[in-house]
């Protein structure tokens, strides 16, 4: 910790939580240099105003987190986890749109077939189309993350990533909510199919992109 600035004789260190967040988020390659930079500048600022220096350190920490996490997802082992979280968000958006525009109309349209063998076929096609859409959504996110050039969409995804990670757990909890209108068994089957579809779609696109690169 910095500790080179004095206030009433006691060394003042950067905020511990902010420091820990940065240490956890930064990749192994840049961690020492990045933390060292912040410590050096904190030491300069704390001489003028310890309170302002701590606020500055916090601002640096929270504005750096999305960049550091996304960079690690792109370059390190965390990429699979991050990719899965982002793919789940894409799937969530897709399923929400599906529920609004397709599910209700399909239920009305095929109501006459209920209980017949054709109805089972319709359900299988319906589920397959849904999973294909989920996989495509995961693939689209992967394409945006792993393309190297900076584009508007790429930057937008980088900024949305923290929200995607935060939304991952509530979505799972909402899916398992007993008050949901679908039977629990159906929702569990749906989750078991949707998760591999999402990550599978993302993985396929990632593989395709890496083949294109030399």
């Amino acid at each position, binding site marked *: 910790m910095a500790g080179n600035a004095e206030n009433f004789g006691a060394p003042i260190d950067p905020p511990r939580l902010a420091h820990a967040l940065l240490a956890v988020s930064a990749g192994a390659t840049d961690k020492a240099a*990045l933390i060292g930079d912040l*410590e*050096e*500048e904190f030491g300069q600022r704390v001489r003028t105003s310890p309170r302002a220096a701590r606020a500055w350190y916090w601002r640096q920490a929270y504005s750096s987190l999305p960049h550091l996490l996304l960079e690690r997802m792109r370059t390190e082992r965390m990429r699979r986890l991050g990719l899965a979280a982002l793919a789940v968000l894409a799937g969530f958006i897709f399923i929400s749109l599906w529920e609004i525009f397709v599910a209700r109309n399909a239920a009305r349209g095929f109501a006459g077939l209920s209980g017949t063998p054709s109805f089972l076929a319709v359900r299988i096609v319906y589920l397959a189309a849904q999973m294909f859409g989920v996989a495509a959504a995961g693939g689209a996110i992967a394409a945006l993350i792993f393309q190297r050039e900076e584009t508007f969409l790429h930057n937008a995804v980088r900024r949305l990533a923290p929200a995607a990670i935060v939304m991952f757990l509530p979505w799972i909890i909402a899916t398992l909510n007993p008050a949901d209108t679908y039977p629990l068994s159906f929702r569990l089957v749906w989750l078991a199919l949707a998760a591999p579809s999402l990550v599978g779609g993302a993985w396929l696109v990632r593989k395709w992109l890496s083949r294109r690169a030399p």
Partner: protein
Amino acid sequence: MRKAKNLGEFEIIVLAALIRLGTDAYGVSIRQEIESRTGRAVSVGALYSTLSRLEEKNYVASRMGDATAERGGRAKRHYIIKAEGEAQLEKSVFALGKMLKGIKAWPETLKTLARL
């Protein structure tokens, strides 16, 4: 090798800062140079992720310096722009200049830039 694309705005700014700072370019000096010249707050995370991307594209090189007490015993990472980075920066700025040439929308800004 993939076809090099024009640089993003922040990449241009970072590469220009590296040229300005020469051998003294490291995290703190780059950040302060950008903030003082552009008035734009730069997070250390944004800076390091951009530098990492530029290094991956072979536009900059880095080396570890000595550890100092004021940095809690942590070493500085010094950055330097490579010839490929300079060439790409020139190409991107040239493309931008061609797009801006003849535009009369911001006469005061262009006059100020010409004076700098």
